[in-house]
């Protein structure tokens, strides 16, 4: 049985060109970029040129890019780094209820450090209201963090509008763009954000590498102590091969963005149409028109998500829901809970399907049949 991967929002297969480039670098360049000899310079050159190319492709200056171990570290650095460095300006932070745990749990940790955090709600369509963010702003606010695209629903959030309206406020604006990068055109100046998170493995790059864009005006305190890498903002020897792989992934994502978006959108539409042809009941969660091409979150009435995901996996379809919690069991999604309210059936019968490089029209067709089979089995067995 062919296992079909419909979980590209969790992670993506590494693009062959990325892998090729990484292998070359890993083989040929082992030097430490901080070393003051030929080996070091060779490595340093690769890191610098990757930094410069990536920066250019998102409208940033190379000095504004901090390589991190991934999206989680970048989010942590954005929140904690800004909060601690700007305490003198206030102690209030705004995030949204549907942020990734990399932001939410960091905000909760900052609350324990004495910061006040406002959690902006999300509507039933999965969207944050700009007014809600503005209403939450106070003279004490030092940071606002709103994700660009939600990782579970794929809903696009009004980051540019928030940035425009916050223009004259002291607070910095951070956006976790992990699910947006490569699918939406991103120019940090046009978008108007001060900090922005990107992760490589969501765009067919390697795991273990990401970046935080930090506008040159942002005051940031490093979270790690050690060497002076990344302009003293992120100590630790750079992973040269991963950085170069990230560079390649960014290049491919940006250059082929429009064609990928069209391709993923077509696969998603084929999947939805395929489900409609099967005799099963389902609804799409959130505003479909405002969703990125690769993600759809679907509620299947009269099913239970744990049984559904297990069934799908046993039938060779990989999808996901919410986040795994202790001891491997599935918790109701905090994102859907924020949208629909605690205890609503959507929070326990919804699955996220996300499309990408591992999909073809053929395996999507097979997947819809398998999904229909699992859903039918469950709705019949639960009765």
């Amino acid at each position: 049985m062919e296992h079909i991967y419909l979980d590209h929002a969790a992670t993506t297969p590494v693009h062959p060109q990325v892998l090729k480039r990484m292998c070359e670098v890993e083989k040929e360049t082992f030097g430490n970029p901080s070393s003051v000899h030929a080996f070091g310079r060779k490595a340093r050159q690769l890191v610098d040129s990757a930094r410069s190319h990536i920066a250019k492709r998102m409208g940033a200056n190379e000095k504004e890019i901090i390589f991190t171990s991934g999206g989680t570290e970048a989010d942590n650095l954005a929140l904690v780094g800004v909060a601690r460095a700007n305490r003198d300006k206030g102690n209030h932070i705004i995030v949204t209820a549907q942020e990734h745990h990399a932001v939410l749990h960091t905000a909760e940790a900052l609350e324990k450090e004495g910061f006040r955090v406002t959690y902006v709600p999300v509507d039933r369509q999965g969207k944050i209201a700009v007014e809600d963010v503005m209403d939450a702003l106070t003279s004490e606010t030092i940071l606002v963090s709103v994700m660009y695209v939600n990782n579970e629903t794929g809903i696009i959030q009004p980051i540019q509008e928030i940035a425009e309206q916050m223009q004259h406020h002291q607070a910095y604006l951070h956006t976790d763009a992990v699910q947006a990068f490569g699918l939406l055109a991103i120019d940090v100046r046009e978008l108007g954000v001060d900090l922005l998170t990107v992760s490589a493995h969501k765009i067919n790059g390697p795991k273990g590498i990401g970046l935080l864009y930090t506008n040159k005006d942002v005051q940031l305190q490093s979270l790690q102590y050690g060497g002076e890498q990344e302009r003293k903002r992120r100590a630790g020897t750079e992973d040269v091969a991963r950085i170069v792989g990230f560079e390649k992934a960014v290049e491919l994502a940006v250059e082929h963005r429009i064609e990928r978006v069209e391709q993923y959108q077509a696969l998603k539409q084929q999947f939805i149409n395929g489900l409609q042809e099967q005799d099963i009941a389902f609804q799409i969660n959130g505003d479909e028109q405002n969703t990125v091409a690769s993600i759809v979150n679907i509620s299947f009435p009269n099913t239970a998500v744990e049984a559904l995901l297990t069934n799908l996996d046993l039938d060779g379809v990989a999808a996901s829901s919410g986040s795994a919690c202790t001891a491997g069991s599935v918790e109701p999604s905090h994102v859907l809970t924020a949208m629909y309210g605690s205890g609503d059936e959507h929070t326990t019968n919804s699955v996220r399907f996300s499309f990408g490089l591992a999909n073809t029209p053929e395996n999507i067709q097979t997947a819809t049949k398998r999904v229909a089979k699992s859903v039918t089995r469950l709705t019949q067995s639960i009765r």
Partner: protein
Amino acid sequence: MNHDTRVVIGMSGGVDSSVAALLLKQQGYDVVGIFMKNWDDTDEFGVCTATEDFEDVVRVCNQLDIPYYAVNFEKQYWDKVFTYFLDEYKAGRTPNPDVMCNKEIKFKAFMDHALSLGADYVATGHYARVREQKGRFELLRGIDDNKDQTYFLNQLTEDVLSKVMFPLGHLPKSEVRKIAKENDLATATKKDSTGICFIGERNFKAFLSEYLPAQPGEMQTLDGVVKGRHDGLMYYTIGQRQGLGIGGAGDPWFVVGKNIAKNILYVEQGYSNKKLFSDALTATDVNWIQSDKINEVFTCTAKFRYRQDDSPVTVTLLDNNQVHVVFKESQRAITPGQAVVFYDGEICLGGGTIDKIFKRECQLDYVG
């Protein structure tokens, strides 16, 4: 062919269910491992023992190359098992949560879940056997007398048994350990869990006091002589000697009963004190695995506690799934709330919950 037969096995992270999964895999079945999370014991540091147990399930399933999943039955467990557990203590009785867990969780909620995954059979690591004869299913004792767990499985129905596999039923525990070691299973040397699953290794008294207010009161003999204070009736069970804190001259003291209304714990002296003995009981919620084969009045053997030897009894059926059970020889420390389980040789016929205790046809009110 076995590879077309899907067997979903409940895996706890212990050695028994690990070996059960191994044996099924060796027999060529399409084996799927599932870990049940029934209790949230996350401490203030976010650590829970369930996580460690799940990690053991993952290790073993990776060794066996079978898929594994987890399922959360915390709500069902709370509603069906823990609520019953607390209610029984409130009523002054000594509940048996393992019997209820098997009835409501492992062989109901979990079985339904497994069937929804296309399972042909559900397996567990229990020491018991299922025998099929002419389309009928019987529950038999595990061949390891010391480990036989049919006592806890007395509420299973024939319909459930028709879809159950107990791969360890024909093995002694020592053999199970040996198989685990020979196959280098990750759980081969893991200690067996003891006590009630959700309490684990914690102090029972401290655990219970988190959920039920303790009401200390007087310890008296049945003649009303005050012998001391008790910490709360729920902490004591019939026949208990430990923890009474009354010593002195003569034989040791034992719990013989409880008066819930007056909050009195009755104690008497001597292991073989006659107040601890009875000759009949009634039981409620009686389940017969093959009810059509049960007569109105019949003789068989019974267990009143886990790991006790069988005793000959005469059973008379009453209305409302109740039975009256007369013992051939008087029994010590029969405890309301515990299970009475009936056997015909190696066949487990079914069982119920001990409710009232009698001696010479008079109910022993003092037992509680």
